[in-house]
C-alpha cells in the first residue's frame, strides 16, 4: 500500500500548498510505513520536482505530455485512478485548492473511497482514519471516520507544518494509458503575475469599508509591501469596486489561512470571519471598541487606521532592518 499526493504547480513551480500536502503524507507514512508517491502533471523540471523529496516523497510520477497540460477534472480523475491502481495506493491527498476541490470528489466516487475534505489537522486516528475537518463555515469542526478501504482527502492551507524529511528520490516520466480526451477546451489562460498569491501568502493585510474609498489604499499597500504580505479586502470593498474581486475574502470570497492576518477598518461580520478564521494570529485595527472583530482578534489596536498605519509601517521597517 502507498500514499499518493497530487502535486500542483504554477508556471513550472510547485505550489507551497502541495509541499504541505507532501509533508502531511510523510507524517502519515511515519505512522503506517507506507511510501509517499507524488504525481505531478505539467511542465515541471526534475530539479524542481526534487523539492518534493525534501518533504518526504520517495517517488515522483511526472506527466509532462502536452496533451495533459490543461486541467480537465474528468480526464485527470481517470489518470489519477490509473496510478492509484498501479501503485496500490489507499490514501490519496490533495490540497483544498480550486484544482483539488475539482478532482478529489470525482476520484472519491470513482474509487468508492470516502472523502474527507477541508481537513484542518493531522489524522486523529489512523486505522480507521479519523479526520478533523471544517464545517459550518468554521463555526464548528467535524470529526469524520472513513469506513471504506481507500480514502481521499483535501487539506487546508496551514494544516501541516512544513517539516523537511529528505529522502532519496526516483523520478519517472509517465505515459498514461488513459487518453487525455478533454471535454473542456481551455481557450485562454489569464494569470495574475508579480503579486503574492492570497491563498499562498503567510501574512495578509486586509482593508474594509472603514477605509472609506479606493484612494485611501496607499498605506495598506505600503504595509503589505514592507511585510511581504498579500492584500485582501472585505466584500463591500470589492462590491464598491474599490478593490478587485480577487482580493475579496470571506464566506463568499476566498478562504484563507495565513499565519498572520491584519484586519484594518473591518467590523468582523460572521461572513467575513468565515473566510479568515483559519488564520493563526489575527490583528485588528479599528476605531470602534465594540467592533465584533476584537472578539476574534488576538491583538488589537483601538484607533484611527489613518493614524495607526503610518506608525505601524515605520515599526515594521525598523524591525526588518534590525
Amino acid at each position: 500500500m502507498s500514499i499518493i499526493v497530487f502535486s500542483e504547480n504554477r508556471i513550472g513551480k510547485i505550489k507551497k500548498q502541495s509541499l504541505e500536502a507532501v509533508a502531511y503524507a510523510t507524517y502519515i507514512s511515519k505512522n503506517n510505513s507506507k511510501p509517499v508517491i507524488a504525481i505531478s502533471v505539467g511542465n515541471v523540471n526534475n530539479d524542481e520536482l526534487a523539492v518534493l523529496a525534501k518533504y518526504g516523497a520517495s517517488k515522483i510520477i511526472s506527466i509532462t505530455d502536452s496533451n495533459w497540460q490543461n486541467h480537465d477534472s474528468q480526464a485527470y480523475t481517470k489518470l489519477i485512478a490509473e496510478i492509484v491502481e498501479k501503485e496500490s495506493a489507499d490514501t490519496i491527498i490533495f490540497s483544498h485548492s480550486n484544482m483539488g476541490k475539482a478532482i478529489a470528489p470525482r476520484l472519491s466516487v470513482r474509487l468508492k473511497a470516502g472523502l474527507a475534505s477541508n481537513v484542518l489537522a493531522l489524522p486523529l486516528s489512523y486505522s480507521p482514519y479519523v479526520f478533523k475537518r471544517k464545517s459550518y463555515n468554521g463555526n464548528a469542526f467535524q470529526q469524520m471516520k472513513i469506513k471504506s478501504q481507500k480514502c481521499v482527502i483535501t487539506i487546508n492551507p496551514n494544516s501541516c507544518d512544513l517539516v523537511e524529511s529528505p529522502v532519496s528520490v526516483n523520478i519517472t516520466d509517465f505515459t498514461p494509458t488513459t487518453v487525455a480526451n478533454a471535454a473542456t477546451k481551455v481557450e485562454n489562460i489569464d494569470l495574475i503575475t508579480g503579486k503574492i498569491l492570497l491563498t499562498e501568502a503567510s501574512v495578509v493585510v486586509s482593508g474594509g469599508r472603514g477605509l472609506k474609498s479606493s484612494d485611501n489604499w496607499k498605506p495598506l499597500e505600503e504595509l503589505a509591501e514592507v511585510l511581504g504580505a498579500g492584500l485582501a479586502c472585505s466584500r463591500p470593498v470589492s462590491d464598491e469596486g474599490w478593490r478587485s474581486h480577487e482580493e475579496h475574502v470571506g464566506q463568499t470570497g476566498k478562504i484563507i489561512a495565513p499565519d498572520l492576518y491584519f484586519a484594518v477598518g473591518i467590523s468582523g461580520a460572521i461572513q467575513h470571519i468565515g473566510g479568515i478564521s483559519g488564520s493563526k494570529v489575527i490583528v485588528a485595527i479599528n476605531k470602534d471598541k465594540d467592533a465584533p472583530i476584537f472578539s476574534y482578534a488576538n491583538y488589537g489596536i483601538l484607533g484611527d487606521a489613518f493614524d495607526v498605519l503610518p506608525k505601524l509601517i515605520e515599526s515594521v521597517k525598523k524591525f526588518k532592518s534590525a
Partner: protein
Amino acid sequence: MKILVCMGNVPDTTTKIKFDSEMKKLDTNGIQWVINPWDELALTRALEIKEQSGGKIEKVSVINIGKADAEPTIRKALAIGADDAYRVDAEPSDSYYIAAQIAEVAKKENFDIIMCGIESSDFNDAAVGSMLAEFLDYPSVSAVSSFEFNDGNVKLKRDIDGGKETIVISTPFVAIVQKGICINPRIPAMRGIMMARTKPITVSAPVETDSLIETTIFELPASKAACKMVDAEDTDKLIELLHGEAKVL
C-alpha cells in the same frame, strides 16, 4: 434544453451553531433556513440564461435532497422563478449520498446543464457537484465565475489559484459556480410567490447507496483568550509581540 440547479437548504449564515448534548447533531431550534447562498446565485444565473436564450432553454428546475421541512426553501426557489422542483425525501447525510440521489433523478430527466454551488455553508464539503458529475460520467468545471450561453454555445470562466481560464464546453456538463456568476441573487416578488403555490414539486424516495464515511462527533472552536490591546501610539510593541510572543513575524 433543460437546466437543473442543485439546492441545499442551510441555516442562515448568521446562525449561532449549537449541537445536541451528544455533539452528534445540529440543534435546529430556532434556526432560519435559507437557500445555500451559492445556489441562489446559480439559480439567478440559470434564469437569466433561460430568459436570454430565445426559447432554446425550455425550463429551469431545482432539486433538493431533504425531508419535508425543506419545502419552504424549495417554494422560495419556485417563487424566485424556477419552473418546477424535485425533492428526494431523505436526510442529506453526506455528499456522496446526496450526489448519488441527485444522479438518479438527473439520469431519468436528462438535464443538459446541471449547476451546483461551490460549497454548502453547513457541510463545507465542496464536493457534491464534482461527485455528481462522476456518477453521471459528465465533464465538470469547478470554480466557475462567469457563464455565457450564446446560441447554445457555452463559454465559462473558472478561477485557478492566481488567475482565470476561459473554457468552452458542450452539453451535457456540470458547472460548479461561485462568486461572479451573477451580480445579485433574485428575491421573490409577490407575483412569484403567488405563482409558486401551484408549481409542481415531484417527491421521490431515495435509492440505496454505499456509506463511506461517518461523523463521529462535532466540536465547537475553543474559546479564545481575550484580545490583547496595544496602545495606538506604541506600534513597536505590536511588532515585538507578533515576533516574540506569537512568533508569526
